[in-house]
């Protein structure tokens, strides 16, 4: 199996990074390109850019961003946020992104996954699922967590895989932003239900959390945001600690 991956996630609004602090040797922490180069050099395995802009020009801005990132950062990156058509995906991939992720649009039009997979390959298609605990299982939410669907996360993950998803970016809405740990049961349940890799997201606050998601949670990758953006942990610290505990990392 490939090494477990640590993936910083950057929220982008109008071409700028939201939520972050300045580190040494960084001229502008809000510049996504400089940020990407910083995380490449720090040992990040991939990057995820979530575009949360609302402007009409957002598609052009995000494609331009992808084009600039691949001039300075030499690790894979995934771009998503509001993508609705394979043409939008094509412009981002042609600019140099490796994958795109789709969330609400995939749920509303599952054939979009199949169309993307056919046009770009399953390896380019990441389906993002936002899930919230509901009794014994987890419910899928859309529109950045505002709209409940009534559908279970495990069922939707299986459907997404069948449609051609190459990976699942699985966010626990209960954990997101809390730094209280990933939802390990959710992560494990979905990882066991599908054969494509799971990227655990939502709740990373300590190296223990990351370790648990990659071992008990059976995730192939751990998304990290605040914990690295605010400098609480460095990618190097995370990697060396995981390595010392027997997790294969780069």
């Amino acid at each position, binding site marked *: *199996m*490939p*090494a477990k*991956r640590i993936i910083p996630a950057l929220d982008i609004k109008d071409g700028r990074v939201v939520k972050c602090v300045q580190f040494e040797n960084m001229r502008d922490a809000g510049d996504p390109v400089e940020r990407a180069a910083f995380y*490449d050099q720090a040992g990040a*395995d991939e990057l995820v850019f979530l575009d949360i802009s609302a402007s009409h020009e957002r598609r052009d801005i995000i494609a331009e961003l992808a*084009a600039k990132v*691949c*001039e*300075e950062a*030499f*690790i*894979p990156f995934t771009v998503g946020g509001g993508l609705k058509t394979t043409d939008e995906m094509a412009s981002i*991939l*042609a*600019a*140099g992104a*490796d994958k795109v992720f789709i969330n609400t649009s995939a749920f509303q039009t599952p054939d979009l996954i199949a169309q993307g997979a056919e046009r*770009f*390959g*399953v*390896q380019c298609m990441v389906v993002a699922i936002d899930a919230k605990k509901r009794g014994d299982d987890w419910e899928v939410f859309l529109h950045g967590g505002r709209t409940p669907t009534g559908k279970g996360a495990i069922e939707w993950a299986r459907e997404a895989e069948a449609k051609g998803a*190459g*990976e699942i970016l699985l966010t626990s809405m209960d954990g997101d932003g809390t730094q209280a740990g990933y939802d390990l049961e959710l992560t494990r349940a979905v990882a066991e239900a599908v*054969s*494509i*890799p799971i990227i655990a997201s939502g709740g990373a606050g300590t190296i223990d959390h990351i370790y648990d998601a990659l071992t008990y949670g059976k995730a*192939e*990758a751990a998304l990290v945001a605040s914990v690295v953006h605010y400098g609480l942990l460095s990618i190097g610290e995370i990697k060396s600690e995981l390595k010392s505990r027997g997790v294969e990392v*780069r």
Partner: protein
Amino acid sequence: MITILDYSVNNLRSVQKAFEHLGHQTQVTSDADEIARAEKLVLPGVGAFGEAMRNLEAKGLIDPVVAHAQSGKPLMGVCLGMQLLFDWSDELGVYSGLGILGGGVHRFTDAPDLKIPHIGWSGLTFPRESKLYHGLENGEMTYFVHSYHVQPEDPSIVAATAHHGQTFVAGVERENVMGAQFHPEKSSAVGLRILDNFGKL
């Protein structure tokens, strides 16, 4: 000057930017005459084998690439670009490749718990010294995204292997013809080293 073959694939721009970051001059072209004059030629590639061969054929690029390989000038295939150097592939049908290197391209064999496509960072093992992988140490990791892998007829062309359920060929080199199954342009410092090795040939 490094000439990067443009035949409508997606990772072209990343490959170009990585070479430029290293200070190498590049040109991106699908012009057969320019390819005939190329010093060092890179065949990038993402996508399906059959469609890539159709694109190469439609643009009249098969003969120039084969001629470049025969001329002794450096040629590097990246990911699908390396697979295309071989005789044939059974991806979504059976398709002929460029036939520069002997052998076929096959899908990973399904096995319990084996995730296909193989996506992610895996360690390389170098069975011998090569120009492309010069200076790298066993265990260094590079980034892979693929469901298919090459099986060369001549095992002596294998320059790097990796493991995903089975040991597979991650890199080849036969004199001036070389390739990487992984994406050096997305493999951080290790990948840049490999591209620089090619650029300095």
